[in-house]
C-alpha cells in the first residue's frame, strides 16, 4: 500500500491541476471558448486519435523534432571535439558559439524561411540551429575537463592518440555530453512547434494555429495537452537512455530525481 502511494504521489500535483481545470471550467466563471472542460478536450484528443489526425500531426512533429535533434546531437558532439582538439576550429567556432548561444535563434526563422522555404527542411534546420548549442558547449566543456591522470594511464598502458579519443575522452566526457543532449531534446521539441506555428501546415503546432483561426478552442487546448504528453514521454525516454549508457555512474545506482 505504502509503495502504491509512493508511486502515485508524484502524479498528485498533475491530478490536482486537472481537477481544478475541470471544476473551474464547469463553474461557469468562464465561457467554454476561453477554457473548455478538460473532459471535452480529452474527448477531442480521443476523436482525433480515432480519425488518424493525431497520429498524422504528432508523427510529423516528432519526425521534425527528432530528425533535427539527431543532426544537432551528431554535429554538436563532432564540433565540440573539433573545437577542443583543433586550434583552427577553436579560433573559428569559439567566438561564434559564445555569441550564438545566448541569442534567440528563432529570430532567424524568417531568414531560414526565405532561404529554405516553408517545408520540412526549414523546420528541421531551425531545430538543428537551436538544439546544437547546448550539445557543443557540453561536449567542449566535458572534453577539456577529462582528468590528466586518466589520459596518462591509458597512454602508459599502450593506447595510441586515436584510441585515447574514443576509449578514454569520449566515455569520460559522456555524462556531461548526455546532460547537454537532455537539455537539447526539449529545446528541439519547443523550437519545432514554434516553427510549425509560424509556418503552418501539418504538425501539432500548425494544427493548433489552424484550430485557433477557426475559433476551435478545444482544438487548441488538445494541442497543448498532446505536446505536454509528448514532451514528457521524450524526456523520460532520454533519461532511460542515460541510465542505460551510464550504468557505471554512481548516479545510476541512486538517481537524484523521479
Amino acid at each position, binding site marked *: 500500500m505504502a509503495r502504491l502511494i509512493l508511486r502515485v504521489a508524484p502524479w498528485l500535483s498533475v491530478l490536482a491541476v486537472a481537477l481544478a481545470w475541470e471544476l473551474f471550467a464547469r463553474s461557469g466563471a468562464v465561457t467554454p471558448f476561453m477554457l473548455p472542460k478538460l473532459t471535452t478536450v480529452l474527448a477531442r484528443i480521443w476523436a482525433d486519435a480515432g480519425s488518424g489526425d493525431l497520429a498524422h500531426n504528432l508523427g510529423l512533429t516528432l519526425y521534425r523534432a527528432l530528425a533535427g535533434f539527431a543532426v544537432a546531437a551528431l554535429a554538436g558532439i563532432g564540433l565540440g571535439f573539433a573545437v577542443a582538439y583543433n586550434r583552427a576550429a577553436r579560433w573559428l567556432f569559439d567566438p561564434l558559439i559564445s555569441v550564438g548561444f545566448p541569442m534567440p535563434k528563432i529570430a532567424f526563422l524568417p531568414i531560414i524561411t526565405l532561404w529554405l522555404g516553408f517545408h520540412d527542411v526549414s523546420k528541421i534546420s531551425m531545430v538543428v540551429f537551436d538544439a546544437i548549442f547546448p550539445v557543443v558547449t557540453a561536449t567542449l566543456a566535458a572534453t577539456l575537463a577529462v582528468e590528466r591522470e586518466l589520459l596518462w*594511464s591509458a597512454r*602508459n598502458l599502450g593506447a595510441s592518440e586515436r584510441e585515447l579519443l574514443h576509449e578514454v575522452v569520449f566515455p569520460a566526457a559522456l555524462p556531461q555530453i548526455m546532460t547537454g543532449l537532455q537539455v537539447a531534446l526539449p529545446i528541439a521539441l519547443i523550437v519545432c512547434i514554434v516553427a510549425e506555428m509560424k509556418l503552418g501546415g501539418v504538425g501539432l503546432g500548425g494544427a493548433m494555429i489552424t484550430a485557433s483561426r477557426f475559433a476551435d478552442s478545444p482544438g487548441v487546448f488538445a494541442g497543448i495537452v498532446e505536446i505536454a504528453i509528448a514532451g514528457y514521454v521524450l524526456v523520460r525516454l532520454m533519461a532511460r537512455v542515460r541510465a542505460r549508457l551510464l550504468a557505471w555512474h554512481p548516479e545510476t545506482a541512486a538517481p537524484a530525481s523521479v
Partner: protein
Amino acid sequence: MVESKEPPVKHQIVVEALSHTYRPARGREVLALEEVSLAIAPREFVALLGPSGCGKSTLLYLIGGFLPVERGAIRIEGAPVAGPGPDRGIVFQHFALFPWRTVRANVRYGLEKLALAREEQERRAQAFIELVGLTGFEESYPSQLSGGMKQRAALARTLAVDPKMLLMDEPFGALDAQTRSLMQAELYAIWQRTPKTVLFVTHDVQEAVRLAQRVVVMSARPGKIKATVDIALDRADPHIYRSPAFAEKVDEIWNLVRDEAIKAQ
C-alpha cells in the same frame, strides 16, 4: 649519503642534471627541479621523499615520459625517454581507474593493447585480480569500491602488463591509516614475488623507511636532492615498526626533512 656520479653497477633508470620549469597557464613560472641526478639499479626499491611542492611527482612524471625533458637527461636502460611506455607502469594517488569499466575490464585494458588472445587476456586479468585480493569484485565498477580496493584494482591494472619498473605517485596517500598499512605490507609482498624496480613517491617518512631500500630526500623549491639514505632493515618483519633500528632511521630522515617541510609551509 652523497650522490655518486659514477654508478658502480649498471643502472636501469639514470637521471642526469635534470631541471624542469613548471609553467602554469596563468601566474609565475616555478623552477620545479634543479640539477637532479639519480641512478636506480634494476629491482631496487627507492623512495622519493620530500615536502609537498618539492617536485618529486614532477620527477616521476618526467621519468614516466608524461612531461617533456627540457634540460638534462633521463635514460631508461640506456635509451633517452621518449614518451610513456608499458615498461614503466604508473600508479597514481587517486587511482585513475576508468570509471566506465568494471574491475575486470580495467585490468584487461593494457592487455587488450598487447594483442593477446582473448582467453589469455582474461586469464591474466583474473590472475592479477586474485594477486591483489579482489576476487569476487571482478564485475564491480570503481564507484562501487572503497579507496583501498580502488588502489588494488589500479595496481592490478598496472602489474598485468608486467612492467619492469613501477612508478608510484603517493599511491597510498588517499587511504586511511589502517588500509595504508595493509597496502604497504601487500606491496612489499608483491614486490618480493615479482621483483621490479620501484620508484615510490611519498611524503610519509615511516612509509619510506618501511618500504624502500634507499630513501632519496628532496629539498623544497626548487627541488634538489638533499641526501640519499640506505635502509638495511628486515622488511619482512611484521613488527618492523617496533624495532629500534626503524625508529633510528625514521629519526635520521625526519631530521633531514624537517627543515624542508618548514620551508615549504
